[in-house]
């Protein structure tokens, strides 16, 4: 389901990336229902303005964020992934955010090994009252990712597979 949602998000984005005015990062955010998503709502009703580069996926708990979602977001073209959850001790499900925190600690190391920079992946604790923090975190992350430039994994995968096309053409020619 999250996979399908990511497909949708990334498909609808193709036009907004790489406009004439330059690179606009695409960031997928997973916000927990009880704290950060509510905070994003609060930011909205408070008329706070933040960068429009973030596409939010609401999850019931930050602990629900399977590392597969994160890698899938990158693989489908996200330039950054942001996760927002309740502060430690405040998780609606008691332990969920700790579970996520532990995964994130190792994921950061693993992503580094895979050549994905630290600033592309971020975890923030944002309570339902912290609408202002949603704004500062998003703006800050968008700026950092903008500096890093596009990640463009789908493009990289396509370019990488160009080395196969020559053989394919030869094989097809032989077949005819």
């Amino acid at each position: 389901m999250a996979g399908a949602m990511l497909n949708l998000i990334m498909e609808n984005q193709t036009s907004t990336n790489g406009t004439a005015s330059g690179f606009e990062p695409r960031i997928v955010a997973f916000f927990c229902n009880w704290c950060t998503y509510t905070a994003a709502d609060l930011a909205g009703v408070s008329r706070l303005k933040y960068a429009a580069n973030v596409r939010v996926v609401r999850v019931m708990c930050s602990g629900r964020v399977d590392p597969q979602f994160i890698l899938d977001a990158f693989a489908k073209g996200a330039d950054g992934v942001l996760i927002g959850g309740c502060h430690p001790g405040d998780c609606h499900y008691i332990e969920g955010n700790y579970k996520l925190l532990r995964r994130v600690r190792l994921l950061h190391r693993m992503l580094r090994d895979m050549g994905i920079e630290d600033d592309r992946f971020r975890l923030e604790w944002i309570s339902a009252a912290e609408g202002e923090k949603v704004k500062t975190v998003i703006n800050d992350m968008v700026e950092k990712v903008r500096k890093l430039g596009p990640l463009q994994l789908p493009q990289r995968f396509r370019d990488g597979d160009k080395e196969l096309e020559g053989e394919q053409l030869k094989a097809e020619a032989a077949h005819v």
Partner: protein
Amino acid sequence: MSEKPKVGFYWCASCGGCEESVVDLAEGILDVVKAVDIVFWPVAMDFKRKDVEAMPDGAILATLLNGAVRSGEQEEMVRLLRRKSKLLIAYGSCAHTGGIPGLANQFSREEILKFVYQESPSTANEKNTRPQTRFAEEGRETHLPELHQVVRSLDQVVEVDYYLPGCPPTPNLLKNALGVLLSGKLPPKGAVLAPETALCNECPRKDSKPQDVAFKEFKRPHLARIETDKCILAQGFMCMGPATRAGCGAQCVQGNMPCTGCFGATSRVRDQGAKMLSSVCSNIDPKEEPEIDKVLEGIPDPVGTFYRYGLARSLLRRKVSTV
């Protein structure tokens, strides 16, 4: 001319263990030969590429192909065998998910060539000679295949009908697969011919797996003793069982070694490494970052640990490289 169905075996980037596993059928191989004609098997029989080329398309019932694809020559052979075979079966971890050769995707081709032909401590290569795809001497020209930029699983190059997982697949698995293929009652295309359950399900130590695990440290098999009667993961050794498909009979665990994940994930999981990382990390005991990091020091190489056989077929496929 015999009317027996034709079967082929081929290898690409692999160690030869998969070929060995066919021989591991022991006298069972006689039953195989009774039922099918082996028409191509470079490691054991003297058929040439031109013999395959001479066959009509689809003449081979099934080709069991092991090894990852990482050179132009392998790609060519894979495409040829795809055309000549009704069914193409990815045999073993390398063809299935990239296998050990897939770990090369942590480096660019340039980094690999530079290390192997220039920097490795055992290399003497003053002229910095690199392999060339073309070489001419005395009017004769030789062509050599080019190393690909990326290591690929078989299905990243051509369509694959079935998968036989394992490093290598066990003789039982092969026997069952041949039985299925010959029966004509084919499973849905794309099926992995092994159980849909996690390895823990068939582990002899299943009952000793505690309900709750809270890791205070991770130990490595060469540095600590593994108790022989208790769940290996619960002892703090990285056993990939929970994120790995069953079907091998938990052979490594029976040899008192942790599962390293060679069967890949079940079909409900897209990325075996991410799933295992998720499961293991969730169950770390501490709650504060410094202490969490200390526990995680016991996993010095997350990519090599969680993607030992599956990096090429993982969501990220390869290191994002600028070289």
